[in-house]
């Protein structure tokens, strides 16, 4: 997982280049521009600044938006804009970054449906996992990378949300933890309360698990046991002591776990969820794999669930609507 940062100079360099390439199209130069959303809006300004003044006067702009929630495309002032879109030799559809490609592909389909003769597409940044490739693009980044540009500051990674004061020590389990007076957590779940620090240390040493603990005032408040496979991360166990719940330690451990999964280029995170909480995990976009249900008795029944880390969308649906 790499964070790329493009400063103003770099962005302007790419903007000058795409401006020149559009000029090379001659009579096919797109005179109608459709910046996509807020990021397309920002980028279009930099490209416009790189054009000769005379060219700028010829360009008409029709901002377009894609609503991810509703999966709908909005073309600004659509009825009045259709004639321009149809008459232009080409329409220029641009956005700053493409992740899955769903937004740009949906908008492109809409512009074609409105009668655009040709749609020329551009994005400053494109992720390798995209299902849609624009005609021109600046930087191709990895599936798990993030790219920042035209920002006054670069957001750091964090373990706690902004409203929570960070506390505790997040670290790997170590041999000395086996010597603790308190041998395990009190989670209220019988099978988990049987797992000792020695068990976790053994799993780490013998079976290749990673175990991270959150230590608070000398006590272990929570832990997560994970296993990285080639394409997935299994959150094998997560437990928090009843006395230490509600302080954000669980969020910190799970956030760190996901960061590790992304850094290892995992495509998905898997876990076993207690049966009566499966709907809540579903809401957080975990999906039952249907592979297995583990019943341990004592009302402990677990479902295997999985959440994709990468951007995906139904290509069939978008191309055949």
């Amino acid at each position, binding site marked *: 997982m790499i964070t790329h940062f493009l400063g103003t100079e770099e962005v302007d360099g790419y903007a000058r280049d795409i401006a020149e390439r559009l000029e090379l199209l001659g009579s096919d130069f797109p005179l109608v521009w459709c910046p996509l*959303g*807020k990021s397309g*809006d920002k980028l*279009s*300004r930099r490209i*416009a600044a790189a054009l000769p003044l005379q060219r*700028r*006067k010829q*360009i*008409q*702009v*029709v*901002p377009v*938006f*894609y609503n*991810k*929630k509703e999966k709908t495309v909005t073309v600004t*002032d659509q009825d009045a*804009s259709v004639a*321009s879109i149809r008459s232009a030799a080409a329409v220029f559809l641009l956005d700053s*970054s493409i992740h899955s490609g769903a937004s740009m592909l949906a908008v492109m389909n809409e512009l074609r449906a409105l009668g655009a003769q040709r749609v020329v597409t551009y994005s400053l940044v494109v992720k390798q996992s995209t299902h849609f490739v624009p005609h021109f693009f600046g930087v191709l980044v990895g599936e798990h990378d*993030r*790219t920042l540009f035209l920002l006054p500051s670069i*957001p750091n990674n964090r373990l706690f*949300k*902004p409203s929570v004061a960070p506390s505790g020590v997040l670290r790997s389990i170590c041999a000395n933890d086996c010597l603790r007076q308190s041998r395990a957590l009190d989670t209220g*779940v019988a*099978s*988990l309360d*049987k*797992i*000792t620090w020695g*068990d976790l240390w*053994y799993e780490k040493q013998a079976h290749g698990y990673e175990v991270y603990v959150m230590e608070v005032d000398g006590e272990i408040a929570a832990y997560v046991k994970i296993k990285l496979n080639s394409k997935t991360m299994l959150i094998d*166990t997560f*437990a*928090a002591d009843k006395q230490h*719940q509600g302080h*954000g*330690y*669980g*969020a*910190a*451990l*799970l*956030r760190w776990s*996901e960061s590790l999964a992304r850094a290892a280029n995992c495509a998905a995170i898997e876990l*076993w969820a*207690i049966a*009566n*909480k499966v*709907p*809540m995990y579903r*809401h*957080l*976009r975990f*999906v*039952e794999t*249907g592979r297995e249900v*583990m019943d341990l008795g004592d009302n402990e029944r677990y479902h295997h669930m999985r959440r994709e880390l990468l951007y995906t969308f139904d290509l069939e649906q978008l191309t055949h609507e």
Partner: protein
Amino acid sequence: MPISLAQYLEEAPERDQAAIGLELCEDCGVPLQETIAGYRPTGEQHAKHAVGEPVGAHGAKCSDCYFDRLGTLAEEYPIGRPTAVRRRLV
């Protein structure tokens, strides 16, 4: 009518104010720009779960609120794949 490029560049502050096309976090209301705040869809609308149950509510959260919810859930109802351990309690 489409606007001219000059008009478009002048009108930017109004469009920025309207946070055009940006979805907001369903919990804290922050604009969901993927690389800055994170964009985490929630709900089951697009989930392809094996049991084929009906779809539910759909929204999106920023990364902070997503992990807040996931962490709280996991603290109250631990994630487990309990396996046989070295020490048997008899």
